[in-house]
């Protein structure tokens, strides 16, 4: 882990925005920190279809936040607002405010490329580039100019693969295609690729839904480790997964954020009737 902390410090010093909670002790309660991301009355339309209604949530720093809810309730839509991936959908329109470290990410001055370097994303289906394992991880640092020299790139690739818990498995075949790995390895490669640009936030959209239980367990373990250094938001349709990996949970239903709270409270003592129905398996 020394490696991890070391590289964080370096990366933080290169970022224009100073992270508020850098000084906070590593083992502090998530709630004790200032929220990293705040959203206020976020609405999303796909053409005429109103998909998200007035979502207001605070997302804590260095913790895992889970979005749960039945399929089609807008979890992915909301997640994709946070790195502005919805910009790539022609029909999508986003209103409301989302701030990262106090800065409005929909500010016209803000460059979406810089935003996405700070807010990485891991997708539902593992989607490594059809390039070598090395190139997959090296791509981000290269396009963002994080590494000038070959040795720098190599250092970043190795440390990212280590952080993603993949290095030992692939160290002898870094030049083989990333698409040749198993599903779980591919997903960890995608996580390594995301980590390589040293983001502050990692968004994960059902990262385990295409994986078998053993691969899922490895990725969940990894998420738990990464929480020390990254703000993680995970969308999951599995309540067990949310319970296992997250500290806070938001429950979405029909485009509305119904309830947000500490994960154990959501699962043991939900306040809203709809949350109750969902976690007791009455719908979804």
């Amino acid at each position, binding site marked *: 882990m020394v490696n991890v902390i070391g590289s964080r410090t370096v990366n933080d010093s290169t970022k224009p925005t100073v992270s508020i909670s850098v000084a906070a002790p590593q083992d502090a309660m998530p709630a004790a920190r200032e929220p990293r991301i705040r959203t206020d009355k976020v609405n999303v339309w796909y053409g005429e279809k109103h998909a998200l209604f007035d979502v207001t949530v605070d997302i804590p720093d260095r913790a895992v936040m889970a979005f749960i809810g039945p399929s089609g309730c807008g979890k992915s839509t909301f997640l994709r607002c946070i790195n502005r*991936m919805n910009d790539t959908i022609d029909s999508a329109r986003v209103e409301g405010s989302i701030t990262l470290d106090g800065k409005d990410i929909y500010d016209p001055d803000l460059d979406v490329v810089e935003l996405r370097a700070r807010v990485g994303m891991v997708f539902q289906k593992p989607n490594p580039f059809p390039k070598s394992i090395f190139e997959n991880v090296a791509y981000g640092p290269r*396009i963002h100019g994080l590494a000038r020299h070959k040795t720098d790139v190599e250092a970043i690739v190795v440390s990212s693969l280590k952080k993603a818990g993949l290095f030992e498995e692939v160290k002898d075949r870094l030049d083989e295609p990333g698409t040749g790995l198993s599903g779980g390895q591919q997903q960890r490669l995608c996580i390594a690729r995301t980590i390589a640009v040293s983001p502050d936030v990692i968004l994960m959209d059902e990262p385990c839904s295409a994986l078998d239980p053993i691969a899922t367990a490895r990725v969940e373990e990894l998420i738990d480790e990464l929480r020390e250094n990254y703000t993680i938001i995970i969308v999951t349709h599995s309540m067990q997964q949310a319970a296992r990996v997250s500290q806070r949970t938001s429950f979405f239903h029909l485009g509305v954020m119904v309830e947000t709270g500490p994960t154990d409270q959501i699962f043991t003592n939900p306040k809203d009737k709809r949350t109750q129905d969902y976690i007791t398996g009455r719908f979804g």
Partner: protein
Amino acid sequence: MTSPSDAAISAGIWSTPEAQASRRRRKRGDLVLQGLGIGAISLAVGLLGLLLVSLGYLGYRAFVQTMVTLDFPVSTERVDAANPAAGNYRLVIRDALVAQFPEVTSTGDLRDLNAILTNNAQFMVRDAVIADPSVIGGTIRLSLPASDQFDQLNKNNVPRDVPETQRRISDQQILWFDTLAERGAVSTPFNWGLIFNADSRFPELAGLAGAIVGTFYAILVCFLISFPVGIAAAIYLEEFAPRNRFTDIVEVNINNLAAVPSVVFGLLGLAVFLNFFGLPRSAPLVGGMVLALMTLPTMIIVTRAALKAVPPSIREAALGMGASKHQMILHHVLPLSMPGILTGTIIGLAHALGETAPLLLIGMNAFITSPPGGLLDASTTLPTQIFIWADSPERGFLARTAAGILVLLAFLVVMNALAIFLRQRLERRW
């Protein structure tokens, strides 16, 4: 798992008359469909085979050429060593023939004897003497093409048993030729002239060199224009263009352009490139530009299809990493679609390679006896050369037309093989 009674029951289910009948029906359906498919493929392969066989039958004769090998006495009387180019080579040739047939003396007979060799024989002897002036005063042994009539005679295309008046060569000429053959002076080697000579009025001298070079230039121009322009247009339409009425109109028109008869592009080339811009007629540059116009819509369509085939997950991955749009396209989408684009390009170019009509309109069917030295020199292309030869009355051009078609087909096969090769190479590199 299953107990014996279960097995018995299921065996009963499988073997009921209804089940058997329905199974037979399904199998018959499968067989019929399979049979239809095999029939269709056999028909296509059979027709293609028939075409190749008939072309081969017609064309193989053009791949060999009757040559007559003689000793030419280059006496100082006929050729001045100080100025070999000005020598009287007609007489050199006559001397060589008379040496073979001393009994021939009358002017008419000498002319008939002379007709065994190609009309350009004197220039060939001259060139050989200029290349090696040391033979002046001695003899030089040369193999020269026989003229078309005797080439056909040698290839058994001239009936020997009909009255003299029904063919263009006399019994006496046949006798002379046979005598030469007996003396071992007649040979039929591979006809390199077919590939290395330019066009000629005399079939025995006519070759495809001009057409091959002209085709190469025209296809090169076509590629250099349609490949980058096609990719740029496809990328814009596929990745950047807003979805609106205007884009729809452009799109529909591109699809329509791909279906426009190629002769229309020839008219366009004639009106715009020749009449308006004043570019030279018959030039491979203009031919290539016209072919590029014709190929461009196809190019845009295949490129768009190739771009569209790149999985959205790759685009999301790139954008999610913070790649900008151009980085996503240039680093990921374009390389991944390259195999498809290249295959489409080569198929488009192969199509252009065989195109005749638009090139006729810009005068690429001119009679040109030397290969083009550049993009602006007048030239023909393979298909227009075939068109010219097919139009010529001489017997020798019939075989040459078929041979020309075989050469064109060979080019197409090579291009398609290249497409497959490139595709596999690039795919292995994913």
